[in-house]
């Protein structure tokens, strides 16, 4: 009989947190990338306030996405490098529980980076990007990206060129999600009423649910021969 789903899921999250607290490899790398990326954009885009307000949502999401890709590569690489994924697959545990554990760990790390990025962007661009709706859209966008990212990183991590392959395979799949997230973020920053941009939030939610179901179902086929 398989070990209970939640026990496996929380064990994997706990293990990832413990390993990260020791090494600070994952969040540290993602944060450093995010900081440098936002800084470079702030110097490169010497725009007036209105133009900056239009560009900032793109800067924010590009930084989160590429930072997240770094983290996903590292997180799944940790399972491949010493054959740990094989050790997990040998255990009497359901494959969706492994996916849930890895996904929630990745989500947690990316959310930390995303949340730290908001005050940083506010300071560097002199535009307040912190609001309730902003947090909702950030959460929905990162959720969807981490769902697809965890599945695709599981595939690409088995290849030699995994660092290069992950963005190539992931970005086209994540494109609809990014589009909705950027549109909603731009509307929030321009103080557009919810009624005018709420559709983007709904699209984001639907994409998240669809991706979650597809990725949980596909994980077993991806992870096993």
């Amino acid at each position, binding site marked *: 009989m398989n070990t209970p789903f939640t*026990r496996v899921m929380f*064990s994997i999250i706990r293990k990832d947190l*413990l390993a990260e607290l*020791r090494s600070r490899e994952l969040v540290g790398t993602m944060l450093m990338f995010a900081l440098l990326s936002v800084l470079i954009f702030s110097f490169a885009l010497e725009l007036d306030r209105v133009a900056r307000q239009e560009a900032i949502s793109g800067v924010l999401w590009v930084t989160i996405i590429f930072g997240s890709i770094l983290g996903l590569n590292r997180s799944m690489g940790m399972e491949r490098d*010493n054959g740990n994924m094989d050790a997990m697959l*040998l*255990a*009497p545990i359901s494959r969706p529980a492994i996916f849930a554990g890895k996904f929630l760990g990745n989500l947690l790390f990316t959310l930390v980076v995303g949340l730290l990025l908001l005050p940083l962007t506010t300071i560097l661009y002199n535009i307040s990007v912190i609001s309730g709706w902003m947090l909702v859209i950030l959460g929905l966008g990162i959720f969807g990206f981490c769902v697809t990212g965890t599945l695709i990183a599981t595939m690409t991590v088995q290849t030699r060129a995994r660092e290069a392959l992950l963005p190539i395979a992931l970005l086209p799949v994540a494109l609809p999600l990014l589009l909705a997230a950027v549109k909603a973020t731009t509307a929030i920053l321009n103080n557009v009423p919810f009624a005018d941009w709420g559709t983007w939030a709904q699209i984001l939610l639907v994409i998240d649910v669809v991706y979650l179901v597809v990725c949980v179902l596909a994980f077993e086929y991806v992870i096993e021969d």
Partner: protein
Amino acid sequence: MSDTRPIIEIDRLVKTFGFLPVLRQVSLSIPRGQFVALLGANGSGKSTLLRLIAGLIKPGEGEIRVGGWLIPAEAAAVRPQIGMVSHKALLYDNLTARENLRFYARLYNLPADQAEARIQELLQQVGLWKRGESLVRTFSRGMQQRLSIARALLHNPHVLLFDEPHTGLDQEAGAALDALLQSAHAAGHTIIMTTHELDRAARLAERAIIIHRGKVAYDAATTPALPVLYREITGTAPTP
């Protein structure tokens, strides 16, 4: 009455990767408690056979049964019966020895109090009780391999699969590993070990199986003449 049925039964097993046949009509029967050395040149299909028995990959044709359960259809019943040690450590570098074992104990659903007692017992058995709180990344290759054996024994499986466990070990670490293998065998575990070291195989195992070009080319009790037989069958010299 003891169970006399074979613990592993393989019937006309075929495995191909793409168009490349790796195992061709392999049939084997391994009794409970036997120590089997699986030999063969690189690419002969030894590791593939171990991964098939472990349920990590699926067979193309044929049947594999472990403890009477069919793989992959009844894999959930097979997994608790198998422990595996590979040339990779299958351990997390940034966790301590004890944290690694605790993590796997949770995956095998061992109750927390039993798990702690078992972890302590195994750390003593593999000679790492003083290093239980050390990070795995500070361990030598030999220590990692010993901890890997503790991990494989955690849930007390019937079958232990060793995929070239001596790779990268010096003589002293290799001898320590041999002692652990012998004690696991004495404790009644069924052991299948792939290796290129024929002298070691002849010394430790009671049965040798040579896989050549995806087929069982030799299957009999180990003998000091194993290196000669190996050369005759495979046409290659064994690794010194």
